[in-house]
Structure formats: C-alpha cells, structure tokens
C-alpha cells in the first residue's frame, strides 16, 4: 500500500513538471490565472533563488531576505492579473521585490539606526590569515554597507545583477540618468575604501 502511494506521488510530480516543460513565463501566468497552482510553483522554481539573492544583498540579512522574498511572491500571486506579458516576468517580480526591500529596509533602519550586514549570510566570513581576496571582499561588503540605500540598490542591480539601465529603470521606477548618477556616486564612495587593497 505504501509503495503504491509513493509511486503515485512520484508519477504525479513527474507529470506536473513535464506538463510545463518549455512553457514561457506568460504561458505559466495564463495557466495560474486559469486556476492551475502547479504553474505558479514552476515560476517560483524559476525565480525564487534570484529574488532571494537580490534581497539578501539589498537587506544584508538572511531572515529579512526570506521575508521580502515570500512577501514578493505572495503579492505577485495576488496581483498576477496586473502582469503585462509585454514585459519580462522577472523584471515585474524584481520591481515588487525592490519595493518590498525598500519598505523592510526603512523599518529595519528605524529599528537599528544603521545598515547591519550579516557576513555569514553573505558568504563573506573571514577566511584564513593572509587571504587577500577574503580581505578585499570583506572590505567591499563593508563599503557597500556604508552606502545610502538608493546608491546601494543601483550599484547592486548594475554590477551584481548585471542589468542594463533600461531594465533597471523599469524595476526601480527611477530615470536612467538618475540611475547612472547613483551608480557613479556609489563607485566614487566605494573606490577609496578599496583602492589600497586593489593596488597592493
């Protein structure tokens, strides 16, 4: 009996995955709106880790990053009818996520008075003595933590996510020229803190 149940479970999962193979994000959204929750699970599989990573870097905390990511997908699910398939689903999701991170970041700053990073969560824990790369990355993390939130957001979207300015603008709702200015100002603030390590 147990074997039969397990077999059924595996078969069911397998057929669900197969059912969505090759479907575009817009197809999946249409399927969710038609009442198929499994299609949303595929969207979660596709974008959860990307969202969690961006949230972690924007907020600096594993716990806050999970909250922001969960809230983003819940809001996306509730507001799925407002997704316009002419835009990339990931950009639409990132837009919700960035707004969530802004809200959570503001709440945290009011509570903590400063941006606090959890190096363990960011994979930046100190390496062995003499680890120059480790030292550089820790200095970089500290420099990013010292940036104003809007500068850190623009800098991470540009150099962490590797997005172009047009997509960054769609995600943040900020104009392209203002974003270029923010990335430049962020670089101007980060550079002096790392220059010695980079030239050494």
């Amino acid at each position: 009996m147990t074997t039969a149940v397990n077999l059924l479970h595996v078969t069911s999962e397998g057929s669900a995955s197969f059912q969505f193979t090759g479907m575009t994000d817009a197809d999946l959204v249409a399927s969710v709106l038609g009442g198929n929750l499994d299609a949303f699970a595929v969207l979660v599989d596709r974008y959860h880790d990307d969202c969690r990573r961006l949230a972690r870097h924007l907020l600096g905390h594993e716990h806050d990053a999970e909250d922001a990511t969960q809230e983003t997908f819940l809001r996306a699910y509730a507001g799925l009818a407002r997704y316009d398939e002419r835009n990339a689903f990931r950009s639409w999701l990132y837009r919700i996520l960035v707004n969530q991170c802004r809200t959570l970041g503001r709440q945290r700053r009011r509570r903590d008075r400063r941006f606090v990073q959890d190096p363990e969560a960011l994979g930046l824990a100190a390496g062995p003595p003499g680890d120059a790369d480790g030292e550089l990355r820790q200095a970089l993390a500290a420099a990013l933590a010292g940036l104003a939130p809007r500068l850190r957001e623009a800098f991470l979207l540009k150099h962490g996510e590797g997005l172009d300015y047009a997509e960054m603008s769609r995600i943040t709702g900020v104009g392209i020229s203002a974003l270029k200015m923010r990335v430049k100002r962020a670089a101007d603030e980060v550079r002096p803190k790392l220059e010695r390590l980079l030239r050494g």
Partner: protein
Amino acid sequence: MADVDERIAAEVAWIYRTHPRPEAAARERLMERIREARPPGRRGLGPTWWLRPRAISLPPLAWAASALVLVALGGSLMWLAPLGPGAQNASTAVTTAPAGESRRLVRFAVQAPGARRVALVGDFNGWDPQASPMRRVGGTWLLSLPVSGGRHVYAFVVDGERWLSDPAAPLAPEDEFGFRKSVLVVRDPESL
C-alpha cells in the same frame, strides 16, 4: 581609476555568482503560504455593504438630468468609436447625479468589443472583480454605480484576467506592480 572600477565590478559579480544558494525548504515554505492564499483574480466579497441590492432613491429631476447626461455620453462614445484600433478601449467615467445622501451615481463605460466579460474594480468595491460586472451594449460595456465623494482609483478587468486603466481618465502613479490605475474625483454631494 577605470581599472579599479572594473575590478570592483568584477568582485561584486563574483560575490553574486558564488553566493550560497538558499535551501529548497525556503521555496517549500513559500509554496505552503501560496497554497493558503486566495487565488488571483477570484477575491471574495468583502465588507462592501453597499454592494448588496438596494434601491437608490433620487428626486425625479435628478433622474431626468441623469438621463440627459447618459444620452450625451452615448453620443460621445459614438464619437470615440471611429478612432481606430488604438481607441478600442476608450472609456470614461461620468458623474451623473447625486445618489443618496453622501454618494453620487457614476456611469462607467469602456469600449472593448472583443471582450467576453468586463468588470469594474476600484477602492470603492474592494478591488473585487466579481462585485461589479459591466453590461454589454454593442461594443461598449456600461455600469452605473453610486460612489462616495472624494478621490477614488479604479480599473477595468477584461475577461477576468487583464487589467486595463481608463485612457480617458487621469492616471495615478505606478503601483508596486507597475500598473497605473485611473483616478476619479467625485464631488461631495454635500458641497453641491
């Protein structure tokens, strides 16, 4: 300076690439919450007391004025129709007459000839796509609703899936989903 900036950009990208991936359990926790959430586009009726069927009492003169405005509105929609495909969704919301002590009757119209069904959603009906279905007249969808005085935001939901703002009305700033709702300002009947 340029080489330093390039190195910094490369380091930021490295941190991203090598970052530990979250465990599958986080995705499962998320899906548990999704399964408990209300399905999209199928929100139940909230405490919108005025959505229950009820008679709207208006003085005869107010009804006569309302009828005149509706006739004029019909003419304006006929004028909007020949504007071509880009104007297929041309629509408008017109305050027609006081509707009760603190509300006014607002007539909403949207041209969507290809739609199977259209609903009006707004802050005045809890954004419920089931609450205010519109009535089809030719290629135009119509609905008159009593709305309280003040500023309201609204949109149309076409075929239960697609949200559409009203191109004939002012638009609110983009919401968190990047959607711009339409704005309706209803003068408080008390001030008339």
